[in-house]
């Protein structure tokens, strides 16, 4: 049976969500229409309002409803520490882990020539401007430990070094908590040994 045009269009739209295939999209669409029409209307409004109201923070590019996000305006956060990450999800992950009280900068990706992503796409002008003017003492390069993430970290470090003397650091790499050496892959193990810490 083929769907009516409106239903087909709704199913197609729902399929853009992660984890949603044709079958789940169909179930969701029918649920919204049959069982929860009022909540569906609310969902539609919420999506529209979120799209209109949420933008990027002018300072750190994290998602926010105000020109500056709450992390950038919170006076209790350490303004001399800046952590550069690839996605807003990374900010959430670090925040959930706790322990970090500095600020962030979100790149929305990493340098990847074959995907057509270059420095201009990562807001590096804004980062450079921010580092040049703000009282930042240390920039933590917390891009992913992938080839692209490493290349991005290196590129940013070169750019920032050219602006002014600055402490630059890279997140540590090694054996995860609860990890056993026997099961750790050789590359990680090599890094873990090379980056060993003084044991006090």
């Amino acid at each position, binding site marked *: 049976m083929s769907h009516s045009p409106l239903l087909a269009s709704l199913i197609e739209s729902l399929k853009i969500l*992660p*984890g949603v*295939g044709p079958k789940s999209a169909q179930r969701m669409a029918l649920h919204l229409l049959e069982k929860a029409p009022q909540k569906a209307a609310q969902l539609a409004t919420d999506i529209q309002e979120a799209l209109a109201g949420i933008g990027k923070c002018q300072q750190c590019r994290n998602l926010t409803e105000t020109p500056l996000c709450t992390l950038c305006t919170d006076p209790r956060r350490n303004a001399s520490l800046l952590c550069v990450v690839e996605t807003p999800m990374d900010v959430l992950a670090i925040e959930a882990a706790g322990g970090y009280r500095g600020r962030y900068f979100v790149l929305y990706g990493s*340098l*990847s*020539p*074959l*995907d*057509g*992503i*270059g*420095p201009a796409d990562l807001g590096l002008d804004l980062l450079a401007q921010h580092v040049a003017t703000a009282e930042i003492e240390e920039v933590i390069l917390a891009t992913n430990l*992938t*080839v692209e993430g*490493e*290349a991005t*970290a*290196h*590129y940013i470090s*070169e*750019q920032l*070094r*050219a602006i002014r003397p600055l402490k630059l650091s890279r997140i540590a790499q090694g054996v*995860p*908590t*609860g*990890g*056993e050496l026997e*099961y*750790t*892959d050789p*590359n990680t193990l090599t890094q873990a040994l090379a980056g060993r810490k003084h044991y006090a």
Partner: protein
Amino acid sequence: MSTALQPALVLRTRPFRETSLLVDIFSRDAGRLHLIARGAKAVRRTRSAKSSGPAPLQSFQEFQMGWRGKSDLQTLTAAEPGPVLLTRPDRLVIGMYLNELLFYLLGEADPHPPLYALYTQTLAQLDADAPLELLLRTFELELFAALGYAIDLSQDLAGNPLRQDQCYQYAPEAGLHPAPANSPNALAGAALLSLHQHGPQDPTALRAAKRLCRTQLERLLGGRTLKSREWYRQAAPPMRKIST
């Protein structure tokens, strides 16, 4: 039936559906291939402390790979990680430049074992402190030869051997032709002869090779600009000193 495992490197990966990756590889015996790695994205997420699991598919690491299928999109069936050839952060962009060249210029399923050997060797030398220009020009010239676009340095258009005291211009479709020394992009005969006989070794031969390679690349890429080169050019002064 899967193919027997053979050495290959990843040129590019892209997410596909929920858990899979589309992978472009350069394999030693089958050339450039476009594969689907089912469940490979989940691998990245679920690698836990206890299980080492399959290694993530990354560029610059040699894998022993197997695949099967008949269609354009074959399925990756095995990827056993081998040595990581390039890790130096400052040279990753150069490796990405090589990947861009291979990705755009190699035909699909067109094997080039000698070029594969040169590629792995070049990556390893990039990781060591080998002179950049020499590595890049050697790779580019070999790539042209493998593609059937070798630059003929033995004679000019008319079939005459090159002369030390003559200047030449290079026309991509045709070849070298004698030109006045003040013409744009004029190349000294002496430099070309040195390049022909000894490769891009001495500084003049290296400069000539750079011009030739750039002209040839522009034609082969058909107007496409390479992102890695753009990005390298925009780099801060300490990086800009050495040019691709």
